């Protein structure tokens, strides 16, 4: 057998008849059987997308202050506190990003880089109804383009808001129950899981 990486909700996605492809060592859900409906949910309603395959590189210590201006291909930086930040990295760019940051780290005292890709589950909640779903689970308020840390459904999360919805990063062990929480809260808005195909189109 070849090692294959699976997100924390892989078995839940399989239950929803997800179709998987292997990319960058991950089994990723591309659709749940109806790409058009998933796309409609993203555009007009609300959809839940698993992003467990995103890489995460945590930076700790004194060098965090200098990282916001550091360009890393395929990655975005989110500063959590002055001495703790996280790079969210596309899986294909993860190795290069890690190497680049390690070289940037060398010689810096009290500064650390930790690959936490396996520690986080990540979801996108997309669509015009995304805020309506989220407000059932959390009192978090975050502006478009900003991020914050908050409790969502009782789970501590990093919440990032885009113009299309919200992205959540949280402890991987909560993946299954967070999936349930979002799907349950979104039921009244016709939430549906969406795969990469709907996202790409």
């Amino acid at each position: 057998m070849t090692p294959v990486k699976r997100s924390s909700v892989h078995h839940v996605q399989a239950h929803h008849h997800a179709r998987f492809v292997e990319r960058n060592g991950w089994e990723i859900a591309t659709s749940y059987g109806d790409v058009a409906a998933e796309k409609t949910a993203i555009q007009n309603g609300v959809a839940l997308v698993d992003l467990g395959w995103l890489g995460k590189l945590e930076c700790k210590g004194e060098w965090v202050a200098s990282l916001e201006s550091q360009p890393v291909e395929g990655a975005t930086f989110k500063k959590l506190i002055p001495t703790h930040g996280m790079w969210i990295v596309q899986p294909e760019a993860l190795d290069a990003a890690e190497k680049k940051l390690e070289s940037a780290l060398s010689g810096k005292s009290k500064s650390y880089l930790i690959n936490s890709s396996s520690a986080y589950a990540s979801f996108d909640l997309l669509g015009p109804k995304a805020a309506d779903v989220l407000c059932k689970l959390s009192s978090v308020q975050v502006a478009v383009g900003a991020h914050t840390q908050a409790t969502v459904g009782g789970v501590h999360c990093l919440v990032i808001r885009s113009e299309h919805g919200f992205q959540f990063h949280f402890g991987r062990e909560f993946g299954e129950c967070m999936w349930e929480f979002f799907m349950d809260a979104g039921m009244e808005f016709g939430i549906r899981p969406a795969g990469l195909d709907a996202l790409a189109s």
Partner: protein
Amino acid sequence: MSRLSTPPSSTLVNRSKPLVFEYNGRRIDACEGDTVASALMASGVDILSRSFKYHRPRGHLCGEGHCPNCMMNVDGSPNVRICSEKVCNGMVVKHQNAIPSPEFDLLAITQKFDFLMPAGFYYKIFHKPRFMWPVFEHFIRKVAGLGVVDGKTPPYRYERQHLRADVVVVGGGPSGLSAALGAAEAGASVTLVEQDSFLGGHFRFQNPESSGFKKVLELEKQVRAKSNIRVLTGAVAFGLYEGNMLGVVQGRRTVRIRAKRVVVASGILERPFVFGNNDLPGIMLGRAVQRLLNLYGVQPGKRAVVVGSNDRALDVAADLLHAGVEVAAYADQRERINDSLESVKLLKSKGVALLPATTAVSADGKMHIRSVTLGPVAGRGENIRLDCDLLVLSVGGDPAIHLVQQGGARGFFEEHRVEFIAKRLGEGHFVAGDSNGVHHEDSILLDGRRAGLAAAQGLGSVDHAAEIADLESRLSANPAVVLNPKTMVAPDGSGKRFVCVCEDVTEKDVCDAIREGFDGIETLKRYSTVSMGPCQGKMCQMSAIGICARETNRTIEETGSTVSRPPFIPITLGALTGRNYHPHKTVPTHSRHAALNAKVISLGDWLRPEMYSNPAEESRAVHERVGLIDVSTLGRIDLRGTDVVKLLDKVYINSWGNLKVGRTRYGVMCDDTGIVFDDGTCARLGDQHYFMTTTTSGVDGVYQWLTSWMAGTSLDVCVTNVTSGYGGVNIAGPRAKEVLGKLTSLNLDSKEFPYMGCVQGQVAGVPCILFRIGFVGELGYEVHFPSFYGEYMWDVIMDAGKEFDIRPFGVETQRILRLQKSHIIIGQDTDAITNPLEANLAWAVKFDKPDFIGRRAIFEAKKQGIKKSLVGFVTRHGEVPEEGTQVMENGYSVGRVTSARFSPHLNKSIGLAWVPTARAKDGQPILIRSKGEWVIADVVTHPFYDPEGARMKG
């Protein structure tokens, strides 16, 4: 009572969409849009309930969800006010607090014994003789009280919602709509909260030809068109809390709204009038009648008498005439009735007797009003008696200022308006319309806009001060309208004169209580229970205050009012708590355990397999072949930096300076009072890189402990909780090395990878951290891998172990195996007062270290001597005592059992227990009291299985 032949254009009911529901086993026809009350009244049901104490028949009264008269059990949910509950097809509605029915109630016998129930009767009678109280209590509880929770009804789904808004407007009536529109036009994001299912407030249920009705329709259209106004209908703001947080309940959903500004435009609470038999079915408030006529198309009676005190009452009388109801008379408490009003002209044209300075004195009837006696307001002069089946009371109301009062405002009584007005409002709070004592139709709209603009002032870039000033000047130019009469009590009249319909408190009860010395409004409330029922004073507070003022020769201002506290309306506990999110954790191999039909239990929020088959079979596999257990739930903390050893020496009681790379050590942590709070292992992966494991439930506490002790120091240590990042399994048993050997090229020889060794390397192509650890007492390898490989790793290990008949084992088997080795579990075998010396961990305490957390306390404990010890025991006759049961000596408890199991391998019942240190010797008998039986056991001070550890050390 029946449906109007032609529904008004303002109706909410769609007669083309019939619905059916069940009331007390009877089929009731309704239409879409009906409330349960409107449908019942259209079907001729006029007695909706029995009163709280005297079981008097009660009918539709307020129609706005305030009074207790229409409370029923709807689909298993008690105390639902059916005047606000929309009909759903197939719903089941039952009466409550009447045997067998509201129409014929055996409990009405209590009316004959009303002399036993004066004000504060529970302080005076029934509690003596003392032994009779349980009998009385049983009866009183049966007779009094509200609905009963039906335990068979499945729990409802409750939800919670969090919203934010610049301005929240409470009340969707004319002033609320104007306020919302004003604030929205000023650029604020607005949330409009309306109790009813429709917008428009009392203008909406006026005659559809009225100017008010047309104005609110237009306002609603404008509000709906605004993208920055969120409208919540069927939602009641029940509390205004610190920081302008509003608690709102919308059906079974609790909405918490954080607002920058709050406008309260919740109108008035229409109130009844105190006169003889004022609680008879057929006596309704004016707004209840208008709702029935203009919203639901139901005719509430055939022949009506209207008693009013303001021009709105004239509109009610006119509406009745429009609906074909005969109006026998219109009595107004004012000295003069304005002849120029269109409504007065209509009444006169229809020959309705207009009686100024007249009020209701008493009503007659047994189960329904048959006649009313009217008399002069002054109390001197002739009374007249009129037959009727409907008496409408439209005698004003109290501004609904409860929310702003909760926010810090005070109610000041305005003598000329006869109502309490909110002043000294809290920061960011505004009041508008009827709630603000503004009752003129045009002024209500102007005041709403003024409040909306004022609330939005400063939130946007545009200054609206000029428009606000203009609105204020226009408001002052409009005439002031007074709704309320000078008194809320009729001068005389026969029959019970109810002040509080919720608690069956009469005027006599209130007067008696005052005479007994309870003449302060707060003590009067508590003693007489007036205003303590389901309406919480909405219907009765002003009457009670008025009577109290009259009886004590004080003004109403001097008498004061009671304090308003949340919730404004009764809320179910379910709605208050909302949906409870209790997140559980799943291990990376969760799906595999499910596929194996493991019995999964919740431990420290984790879902863990307790067993797959049975502990005997699973433990045999571990002892004889090989077993696999998921240990992903172990806490894991990554430590890096030049000062890790300093930190470890600080937080552990044992020493870490001499730990070599590739070695693991068991460690114990104590708090500063020397109490053991966690244990685990710590491995040195590199020169400045350590990997700590903690107990499953202790990792968050340990992480905080480490970081808190780091704070303020200059230690160079990077502490990261990596529990989520790793999955873990323990391959245990004599064939474990062979199974693992199939998957890795690492040298597993005991010389290269000895007991308590650790190594990093590839297992089945996956980068892993491996430990040789023996928690279950056999040769064991703990393998930690990135959690996204969880399913893969489980599969490859199970596959590799097939030829050795590998078995997965669960937590229950692990507990037996660790007990055989006398390995303790912190938190189960220890408690909040256990120091390491007592818990057989003295070997780990290194007093030769310069310092560690708890050192001083443990040292003192050692000096004072150890009085209790944790020991193993074997029961003589195979009993397994319950965990937590007492170890007894001479009739006293001297210890307790912390763990006990039957060991299939040893064929003995074994356990751990706290005993006096004098008893902590091999073979000492101890006596355990378990499940009411005596259990004799013998102390064992060494591990029950493989005491030398030869098997796990390999």
